[in-house]
């Protein structure tokens, strides 16, 4: 199977070259995207096939790269699970782009990079040695950076691109360190050799910490997330969908691969930072999503939340695995992987919705939208599925993974360490807070964009989006519903990957009646999304039928009541800022929220103004000082540019002596 996957990646690469050769003209846009869609679909099939048949790992060596090493590729269950995710997300985004890409003003800035970006992500998943892994990772970063800069004429996007480049470079550097440490003195650079190396617990902990920084900066862990909410929205919407829905998962794959496969056993206390950072990221991410006024940025912040949720699950899995509770580790890891899949579905869907809205109205600002449910009914319906899923509400898929994660949290009393026993419930509380805040966030998102009255002319005259886009969104929405009502299929699908990582899988869910989910034991907990769906549909339908039959079915349209004082001005509606006000006020200390009221003096007829500001404490407290320090240091080192040749030589000489001395002491 690896051959098919590798050649598909090669096809994607070729597509990139073809698109470059055609100078990325709009005429080839549909063909390129169609090619990408087919390739991604093939990748998804390969992934599903590998998982479903429980085929063993297949490997191959390609004679490219470093001459005496070549590139090792391997497809095992873990890669296959993420390959399925990538293929599905990539196929949906590509189909969407067939329609969406037509509106692109500068297609030559997207088309050459897009297939290559997909290919690079595929290669990260297939890599079986550190060199291939890091190279593909870096290519993935660079190509996505190029895509972020598509609309480079806007100042904001250029800043975003710069920030992203710096953070991506930093992340890869840290990963390089981590792999270097893992390879050890013997230079075991392919993954098979790395698994054999014995490491001290301290070294393993250090590697895990470095992976958290390296992969976490790509995935969006706090406080390394600062680039994500500016870079993801800056790209065209189908690329945003890929970056948020798929690329963050590729970063997760890197972490899972190292933490659960290459690194070997890790001490229990190393799970503590993962759980803590994950839970804090979840809450902070969704808090920022709750107060931001830009539609796509809201979605990007919500990605940070979901990454936090997944990392918490991974941390729990690490804790259970360190205590040799393979079954429970499998529960936590399954929750994490299934949530990753689910997040790919609904986040891609929502970014596509945001793209459709952007195309129809030209507005990203929430407060310029409103009432689109009348103008774009199909998009609005699909968006409703997406927001219900992401808000973790039954019977859709977001709830399934959250529910499994809570079940794993509820098992924490079985852990022997009192520290974890206290920590995990608190983290569970944070996760519940994040889930509830997500509901608030997406009521706001959907309510301001689709409901109410239009707040601008553009929103008043918007039209429904094209068929390709609707097809892609519809497919994702259908997946969200299916994964919600028959989650057992998805869970059984990722079971081989989980087994590879923690040595045990969840009990097979396929045999349960009514598609019920029974993660641990029947007496402990169970949930059937299918039955909940059926019950709601039946009782809601029956109620509606009875009421219409026995009661009244008359209906009259009239102006809104609004306590007798309706105001025709759409500004009087609740907007994004006003909806966020309660949460902004309650959470003011964490959000550094400030409200300033400018009241004109009596007699002056100018309008009073209320300005609300929030700031990201990570940015002001961590990054600003670093930036200031780098700036100051650069000014200092500026003097080095004006030395004589003799001085330069003595600098070189001095450092040589220093290194030699160091070497002497080292030995």
């Amino acid at each position, binding site marked *: 199977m690896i051959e098919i996957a590798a050649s598909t990646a090669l096809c994607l690469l070729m597509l990139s070259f073809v698109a470059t050769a055609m100078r990325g003209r709009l005429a080839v846009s549909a063909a390129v995207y169609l090619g990408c869609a087919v390739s991604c679909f093939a990748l998804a099939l390969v992934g599903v096939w590998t998982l479903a048949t429980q085929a063993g790992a297949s490997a191959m060596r390609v004679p490219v790269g470093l001459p005496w090493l070549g590139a090792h590729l391997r497809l095992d269950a873990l890669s296959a699970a993420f390959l399925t995710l990538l293929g599905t997300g990539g196929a949906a985004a590509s189909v969407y782009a067939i329609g969406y890409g037509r509106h692109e003003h500068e297609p030559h800035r997207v088309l050459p990079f897009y297939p290559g970006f997909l290919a690079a992500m595929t290669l990260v998943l297939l890599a079986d040695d550190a060199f291939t892994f890091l190279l593909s990772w870096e290519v993935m970063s660079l190509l996505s950076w190029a895509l972020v800069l598509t609309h480079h004429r806007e100042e904001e996007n250029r800043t975003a691109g710069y920030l992203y480049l710096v953070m991506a470079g930093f992340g890869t550097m840290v990963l390089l360190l981590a792999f270097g440490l893992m390879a050890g003195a013997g230079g075991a650079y392919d993954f098979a050799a790395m698994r054999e190396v014995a490491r001290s617990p301290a070294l393993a902990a250090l590697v895990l910490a470095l992976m958290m920084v390296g992969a976490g900066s790509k995935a969006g862990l706090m406080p390394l997330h600062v680039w994500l909410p500016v870079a993801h929205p800056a790209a065209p919407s189908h690329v945003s969908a890929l970056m948020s829905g798929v690329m963050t998962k590729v970063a997760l794959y890197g972490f899972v691969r190292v933490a659960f496969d290459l690194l070997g056993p890790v001490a229990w206390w190393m799970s503590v930072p993962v759980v803590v950072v994950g839970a804090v990221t979840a809450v902070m991410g969704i808090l920022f999503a709750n107060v931001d006024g830009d539609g796509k940025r809201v979605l990007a912040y919500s990605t940070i939340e979901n990454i936090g949720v997944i990392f918490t699950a991974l941390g729990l899995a690490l804790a259970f695995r360190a205590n040799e509770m393979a079954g429970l580790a499998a529960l936590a890891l399954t929750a994490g992987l299934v949530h990753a899949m689910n997040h790919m579905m609904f986040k891609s869907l929502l970014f596509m919705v945001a793209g459709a809205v952007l195309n129809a109205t030209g507005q990203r600002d929430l407060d310029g939208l409103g009432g689109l449910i009348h103008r774009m009914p199909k998009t609005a319906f699909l968006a409703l599925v997406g927001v219900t899923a992401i808000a973790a509400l039954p019977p859709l898929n977001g709830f399934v993974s959250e529910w499994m994660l809570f079940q794993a949290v509820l098992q924490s*009393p079985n852990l022997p360490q009192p520290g974890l026993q206290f920590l995990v*419930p608190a983290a569970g509380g944070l996760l519940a807070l994040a889930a*509830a805040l997500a509901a*608030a966030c997406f*009521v706001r998102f959907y309510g301001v964009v689709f409901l109410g009255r239009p707040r601008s002319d553009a929103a008043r005259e918007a039209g429904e989006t094209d068929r390709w886009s609707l097809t892609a969104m519809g497919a994702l929405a259908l997946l969200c519903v299916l994964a919600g009502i028959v989650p057992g299929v998805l869970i059984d699908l990722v079971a081989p990957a989980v087994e590879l990582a923690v040595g045990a899988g969840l009990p097979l869910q396929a045999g349960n009646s009514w598609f019920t989910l029974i993660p641990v034991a029947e007496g402990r907990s169970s949930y059937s999304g299918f039955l909940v769906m059926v019950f709601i549909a039946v009782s809601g339908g029956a109620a509606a039928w009875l009421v219409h039959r026995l009661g009244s079915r008359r209906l009259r349209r*009239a102006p809104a009541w609004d*306590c007798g004082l309706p105001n025709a001005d759409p500004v009087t509606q609740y907007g994004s800022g006003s909806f966020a006000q309660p949460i902004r006020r309650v959470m003011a200390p964490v959000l550094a929220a400030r409200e300033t009221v400018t009241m004109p003096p009596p007699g002056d007829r100018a309008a009073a103004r209320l300005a609300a500001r929030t700031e990201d404490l990570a940015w002001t407290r961590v990054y600003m000082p670093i930036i200031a320090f780098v700036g100051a240091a650069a000014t200092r080192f500026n003097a080095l540019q004006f030395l004589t040749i003799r001085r330069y030589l003595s600098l070189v000489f001095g450092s040589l002596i220093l290194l030699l001395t160091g070497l002497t002491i080292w030995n």
Partner: protein
Amino acid sequence: MELTGNLILQGVQMLVVLALAPGLTGLVRKFKARLTRRRGAPVVQPYRDLMRLMRKEVVLAENASWLFRVSPYMIFAATWVAAALVPTFAIGLHFTWTADLIALVALLGSARFFLALAGMDVGTSFGGIGSSREMMIGAFAEPAMLLMAFTIALVAGSTQLSNIVAFMASGEVGIRVSMGMALIALIIVGLAENARIPVDNPATHLELTMVHEAMVLEYSGRHLAMIELAASLKLLLYMALIGCVFFPWGIAPANAGVGGLAIGGAIFVLKLAAGGALLALFETSIAKMRVFRVPDFLGVALMLGLLGTLLLFVSRSL
């Protein structure tokens, strides 16, 4: 045989909760009226109100969308399904494994989500204020509820309500301060979720201070009836939840005969009456808080849930 018995039981349960819910609301109103030395409307008044609303025509705002018209049925259905899965008078419900305590909470969350969306639909400022505050309250009530569920699951070893009830009724629990804390936490969450004083005042005429009523301001006729019924069901659900977890006496066991079921039903009605009386007493003796004091109030529930868990760890680890 057992299967059909359980199925019938499930059907009876669905009808019982539906039939009793408006009565409970009427009872609470009656108690409150008597406590403030008014005569008050008869207990059956909510039934009459519902009938009247069902027969009236719907006056729909001009720019209301299909979501606005579908939401009442969704809200009602989600709440009804949730209420039907809580053991009220008997444990052996057929579909009790469909959703555990956590899923039940989330199901109510779905209802809230659609209610808040409906509040935003017409685009009035009252709807918006109601929705935004409701979501804020929900954001703090849900974690408190989860931590409470955590405490209970730790004691009973399950999140499945029928198993929890069976365990609680078995008397193995002993005296646990954590359970007391969980009870208080659940009561606080219940007050907030049901828009009762001190969090919200359903009877107020000051629109700016209300949450739930502001959200449903635009509803009329049969739609309003569905929403009112859902609100009554939710109140009943919380009472039944408190009753079955903390006062599980008298609930008919898994394979009880008709006599046992009848006794269970009678005791359930008594529990509801007692709960309603206590709620009325509490509501008349306390003032509504400012909206921004509510997070503190819910923070107490959150804290109690966490403290209960911590204390439970102590007694477990010794």
